[in-house]
């Protein structure tokens, strides 16, 4: 029995007004996040503890719309901001077939492409708690995923987006995001590497200018 089953029982048989999001009940659509005994979890993958008692609350750091339904509109805007699409100078024609990509090249960005946008990391992030403009773990990891993709040429453009405003440099490397991620993505690592990449890039451009 999972927390989501209990929520469904309650809304089916006790009080139909209980509002919560869910769909796949297999941990992949990312709709069903909530705080379970204080920790951000997917309710469809969180077992009910032996004691039979469990405290379920809406995810922290988001405006609550009703019961467990929180407003994630801000995140949806951040998604667009990191330009999560392949950027290239010249696009291949379809007739030319696929861009070859070796398994080890895929491996480089693979884990960062596994994010299900469930918002657990934002609920755990102290920086986001203090500043809602902060780009945050999931959006940063997604932008970084494209930077690591061998088919993409937009890394410089995207680094500016990822570090500008309330960007990656605001991250204080607490690492809670990676701990709560249900899909073993390591957004904390992505944020650190974005900082390094940005530093290296600006150093390079300073050196070029110096020449």
């Amino acid at each position, binding site marked *: 029995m999972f927390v989501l089953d209990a929520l469904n029982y309650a809304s089916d048989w006790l009080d139909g007004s209980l509002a919560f999001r869910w769909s796949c009940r297999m941990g*992949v659509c990312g709709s069903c996040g909530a705080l379970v005994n204080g920790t951000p979890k997917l309710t469809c993958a969180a077992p009910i503890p032996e004691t039979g008692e469990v405290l379920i609350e809406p995810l922290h750091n988001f405006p609550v719309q009703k019961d467990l339904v929180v407003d994630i509109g801000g995140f949806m805007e951040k998604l667009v901001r990191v330009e999560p699409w392949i950027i290239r100078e010249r696009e291949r024609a379809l007739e030319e077939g696929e861009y070859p990509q070796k398994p080890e090249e895929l491996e480089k960005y693979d884990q960062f492409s596994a994010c299900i946008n469930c918002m657990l990391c934002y609920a755990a992030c102290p920086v986001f708690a203090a500043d809602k403009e902060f780009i945050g773990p999931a959006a940063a990891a997604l932008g970084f995923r494209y930077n690591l993709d061998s088919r993409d040429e937009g890394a410089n453009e995207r680094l500016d987006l990822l570090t500008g405003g309330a960007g990656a440099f605001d991250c204080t490397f607490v690492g809670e995001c990676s701990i709560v991620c249900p899909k073993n993505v390591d957004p904390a690592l992505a944020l650190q590497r974005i900082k390094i990449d940005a530093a290296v890039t600006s150093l390079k451009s300073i050196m070029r200018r110096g020449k």
Partner: protein
Amino acid sequence: MVEKFSHDIAIVGAGAAGLRAAIAAATFSDKLSIGLLSKVYPMRSHTVSAEGGTAAVLKEYDSLDLHALDTIKGSDYLADQDAVELFVREAPSEVIQLEHWGCPWSREEDGKLAARAFGGMSVKRTLFAADKTGFHLLHTLFQHSLKYPSIVRYDEWFVLSLAVEGGAVRGLVALDLRTSELAFVSASAVIVATGGAGRMYQFTTNGVIKTGDGMAIAYRAGVPLKDMEFIQFHPTALPGTGILITEASRGEGGYLKNKDGERFLSRYTPEKMELGPRDILSRALVQEIREGRGFEGPFGAYLLLDLRHLGEKVIDSKLPFVRELALNYAKIDPVKEPIPVRPAQHYTMGGIHTDVNGRTPLPGLYSCGEAACVTINGANRLGSNSLSECLVFGRRAGLDAASFALSRREGGHNPGGDLSVSSEQYTSLAEEKMNRLLKKEGGQERLAEIRESLQSLMETKVGIFREDEGLREALREIRELKGRLPSAKVDDRGRTFNMEMVHAFELDFMLDVAESVAYSALMRRESRGAHFRTDFPKRDDRSFLLHQLSYNTPEGPRGEKLAVNVTRWQPTERKY
């Protein structure tokens, strides 16, 4: 105050099919304004759960004819062969297109796309992204779609009905889930890409959002549903939850075993064994259980899917999600133990009647994806054809709708044209319905009782095995449930995320779809593909090599027949 929006094209549904259509329309002309409505955020659409892969001919050892033949044979010869030929021709470039957009397809050592074996496919032709193909495909499409400013999203908007005037579609009525405010969206073309209707069954691999809304909405607008009797059951789902264990686990070499440790499929599909088509395999599993060779568990009888011999490395690289699902939801580590499985409802082969351009008989109305029935799937879909179908026909519907809408715009029409009745008349019908729910006093039954009654009757009477009397009973019971729904109890009187009201609308839609399934199943007095009649166990090409259309009437569905398009492959007996 009813809000009004206007777009050249309104797309209902943001799964693989809806997103592909939106991108196609946006690239066709940047002059077009495209509204994309979805009752969940796009990345929550159930495409996300697809695991195994996407079929397309991209390998030198394969051929278009072979893919076509496999598909047609898989369909038990009910697929329209012209549509299948077009489908197999266009699927490869769609897979490449997704690759160009960044989909993380799994690769061979040399960097080319990797292909795996799948049920009913005679060679390795299923391209995949580990065992999270649908997830990656959906996220890639969604992220790519963000590039186009002409695609205007309405996330968490619930579409209720279509506006039809002068014999053409003019727009739709939708509900903003945040506020329960109704809006009228006028459009020259509407594309319905709302997915399947699996939730009318008790055991299903489908998410809770798959309630057949678009099918019912089109049906109520006078558009026929086609081949609704064909419901696919997947042989391997987890007992209890219905969570899918992908066919890729057999594609990678997994075995199905009964209580005696026997690979029992040698008695059903001796040549293909575990890679036979789903209709035959699902029946085989039920047969084994009936003959006492299954295991008994807390959620009923089951059989075993054994992956142990594949080893941890293959399981972790090719089937990581299967391991995660088995561990989380069945407390079984497939590296060490076989996984308990049973058949569960999986896919609706039938749907809104369209041609190969996604056009329905109602001008301006299009459909694609699982909600539509072109049909390349006929009586039984082959696994991994459906994601490709969403891409190929999503694109086609998007392009055709775009050129239709553009010509209307250039002809000086407002999107949706000028309505002779005011748009308020369309929304007020919906408003009345909503108010009846929200302001109702009393009420007896809980919605869940009606929903569970429907799910259990579909499971037992319109399931893997069917017969005349059971189907007649099912029809009677569905009609009775329809009568009970209006007096059900509603607890939530609020207007913010009133999910109970949404579930009431969904149940209302599902009852219509279920009625059309039961009706078409009753009329088809033969067995073909996924439709098995114990009272007519043979295929009967003389009387039933035909599609069945059902039209909505106040007295219930009215049937019509339509010829199957046969080009090069004459129906023969199906053996695996």
